[in-house]
């Protein structure tokens, strides 16, 4: 029934290999892009088949073993796939959004050098991501986990001739490495702890079935889950490891949409969902997760308020939304977290692709006028809604969705999270407050983005302003599809008090239900409270939008006055709270200095000293000894006689 699951990651792998090996010879962009897009689209078709098959099935967990990977002692590791509601939803998101973004990239990357390289990496990424979400054991997941990290590195550094892109790629890779270290430590500890109880396994289903062997709320399970959470922090850009994500915007925009908004950065959330049984057993970790999530949501939102680069705003928005997901995971609202993951994938991918469309148009205009202005700077935009109507409408729809306005997808998922963070017995009203403030800020900076880009006077250079076209169909079709999804995506999870059936909650019941029940996680509160919270969060969002409208449409002089009044505050926020500088001072520079010391002090002086010293010693020794080699037969013969006499004398006289 489910034995063809391997086809899902197989197609992108084949596409990646074909483009990677032959792309240089194929040259034709339509063929290269076509191969990649068809590969991922085929995966999407297979995913759809299994998704609907799973929906109609009574048994919700299916494993399919393809081959044995290694068998060490009592540990058996297989190349196995696991399909349950959680991974089914993830593969739908990855392949669905992935297909659209592949299609988009054909138009967006047109004419770029290394076109085939881009598509090869993009397909390889999809393969890794599908391995990550489909793996039935932690090691296969880890293969995918590292694979997506690698592809992220390759794609951020796609314009490797630019120093900033190379640096950003390295930064992403190194920061992710810290997280991966945590993931591995957690895995080792879990493996040995379960092993010492007689269960040697790394399979998710067996881990979940044997989680009761660990002491609930005990130190061990807390440490294990904290280690895993560190891994999730690295991958999903949470405090303190979030600094790489904004820099990752150096990559091409489709990459930002696929990897750094919709899929890879949600891997941490997915991983917590996969290990929900363990996390639910460790209230301390849950509290840490929720706190970090809420803090990240608010912190990143504040930075987003003052950025001028269109992609940077979206990057901080992504960090902030990921914070929401972690907040949900931390308060036990696992299904709400994954729900938000899904809706966020739709509207954030749409936003990124929309920004890509804008950048594409701006670039076109500047190229036409032979200018070298920054096509990503919102201060150069404005009034674009008439030039690019489709981009504008889809962008606006997604912005409304992310702001949490009722009837759009973001409202349902975000509200579910906020309700749980207030009403859950693992939640707290302060978490709700942080989330609600962040929601208001989200509405503000997202509408600031829309107003600065699409409304008001066009601030583009006069020579370029009339040459900004709407993007081609390969770009606008994905935008429209994602725009529609950004509206309707939320209706699978309409909460009960709004007359919905909350399908998504029931859908995830087989995955999260047991962990929630065993650990008594629940959300309580009267309907009045729930309505009130909903009204407040909508009110805050509307207020944020109103504020943005006042400042950037009605009275465009206001932001300048505001900045003049709060110069210090603005500078701190504009410079991202100086987090990068603080990290540089605390970690990066000392590490560099240590490296320099090890190089100049230890390597050059001590190690090279020893090696060169040995060489010199041999040199000097042989300089002295070579005088014994006179080249005269007599001397050698004499030596032989002396030696003989010595040996004979030794035996006689001893």
């Amino acid at each position, binding site marked *: 029934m489910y034995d063809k699951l391997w086809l899902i990651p197989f197609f992108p792998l084949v596409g990646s290999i074909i483009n990677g090996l032959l792309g240089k010879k194929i040259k034709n962009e339509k063929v290269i892009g076509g191969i990649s897009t068809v590969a991922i689209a085929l995966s999407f078709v297979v995913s759809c088949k299994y998704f609907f098959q799973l929906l109609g099935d009574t048994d919700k967990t299916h494993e399919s073993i393809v081959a044995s990977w290694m068998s060490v002692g009592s540990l058996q590791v297989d190349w196995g796939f696991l399909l349950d509601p959680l991974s089914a939803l993830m593969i739908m998101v990855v392949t669905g959004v992935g297909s659209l973004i592949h299609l988009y990239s054909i138009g967006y990357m047109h004419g770029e050098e290394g076109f085939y390289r881009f598509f090869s990496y993009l397909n390889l990424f999809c393969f890794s991501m599908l391995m990550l979400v489909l793996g039935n054991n932690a090691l296969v997941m880890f293969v995918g986990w590292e694979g997506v990290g690698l592809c992220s590195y390759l794609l951020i550094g796609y314009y490797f001739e630019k120093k900033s892109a190379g640096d950003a790629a390295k930064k992403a890779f190194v920061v992710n490495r810290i997280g991966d270290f945590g993931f591995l430590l957690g895995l080792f500890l879990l493996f040995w702890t379960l092993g010492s109880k007689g269960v040697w396994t790394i399979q998710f289903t067996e881990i979940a079935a044997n989680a009761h062997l660990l002491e609930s709320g005990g130190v061990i399970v807390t440490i294990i889950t904290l280690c895993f959470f560190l891994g999730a922090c690295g991958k999903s850009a949470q405090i303190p490891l979030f600094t790489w994500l904004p820099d990752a915007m150096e990559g091409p925009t489709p990459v930002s949409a696929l990897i750094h908004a919709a899929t890879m950065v949600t891997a941490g959330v997915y991983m917590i969902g996969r290990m929900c049984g363990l996390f639910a057993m460790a209230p301390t970790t849950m509290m840490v997760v929720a706190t970090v999530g809420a803090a990240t949501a608010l912190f990143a939102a504040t930075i987003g308020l003052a950025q001028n680069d269109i992609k940077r705003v979206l990057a901080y928005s992504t960090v902030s939304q990921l914070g929401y997901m972690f907040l949900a995971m931390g308060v036990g609202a696992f299904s709400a977290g994954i729900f938000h993951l899904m809706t966020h994938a739709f509207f954030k991918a749409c936003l990124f692709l929309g920004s890509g469309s804008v950048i594409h148009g701006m670039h076109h205009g500047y190229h036409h006028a032979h200018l070298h202005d920054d096509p990503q700077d919102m201060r150069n935009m404005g009034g674009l809604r008439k030039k690019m109507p489709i981009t504008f409408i889809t962008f606006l729809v997604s912005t409304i969705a992310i702001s949490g306005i009722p009837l759009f997808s973001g409202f349902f998922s975000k509200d579910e999270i906020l309700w749980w963070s207030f009403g859950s017995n693992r939640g707290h009203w302060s978490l709700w407050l942080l989330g609600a403030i962040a929601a208001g800020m989200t509405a503000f900076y997202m509408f600031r983005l829309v107003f600065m880009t699409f409304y008001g006077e066009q601030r583009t250079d006069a020579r370029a302003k009339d040459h900004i076209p709407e993007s081609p169909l390969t770009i606008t079709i994905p935008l429209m599809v994602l725009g529609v999804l950004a509206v309707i995506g939320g209706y699978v999870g309409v909460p009960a008090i709004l007359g919905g059936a909350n399908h998504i909650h029931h859908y995830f019941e087989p995955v999260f239900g047991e962990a929630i029940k065993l650990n008594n996680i629940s959300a309580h509160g009267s309907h009045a409270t729930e309505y009130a919270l909903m009204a407040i969060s909508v009110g805050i969002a509307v207020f944020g939008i109103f504020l943005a409208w006042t400042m950037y449409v009605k009275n465009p002089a206001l932001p300048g006055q505001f900045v003049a009044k709060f110069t210090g505050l603005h500078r701190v926020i504009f410079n991202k709270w100086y987090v990068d500088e603080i990290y540089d001072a605390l970690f990066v520079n000392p590490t560099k200095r240590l490296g320099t010391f090890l190089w100049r002090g230890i390597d050059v002086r001590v190690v090279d000293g020893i090696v060169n010293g040995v060489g010199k010693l041999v040199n000097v020794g042989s300089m002295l000894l*070579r*005088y014994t*080699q*006179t*080249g*005269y*037969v*007599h001397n050698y*013969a*004499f030596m032989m*006689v002396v030696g003989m006499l010595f040996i004979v004398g030794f035996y006689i006289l001893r």
Partner: protein
Amino acid sequence: MITVYHYMAVSAILFSLGTFGVLTRKNAIVIFMCIELMLNSVNLTFIALSRHLGSMDGQVFVFFIMTVAAAEAAVGLALMISFYRNRESIDVDDINLLKW
């Protein structure tokens, strides 16, 4: 009565003479002859002790040594001829290329 000790003494004297010749003479042919002298003094020791101990082992060795000496003579003389053709000398002090 000539005992085995006399033989040993003669052979020791011959061996020493040979050694002395190898160390002091410069003519390669003379050195070569001195080496033969040393070998034959050893042969004499073998024969004498073989007789004294009533065992044939020593005589077997003598045959080996004679065979080896014959081969050595052939190789050594060939080397010397070859050397003479190059340098027009068989003085061992002229064989000095193999040095620092």
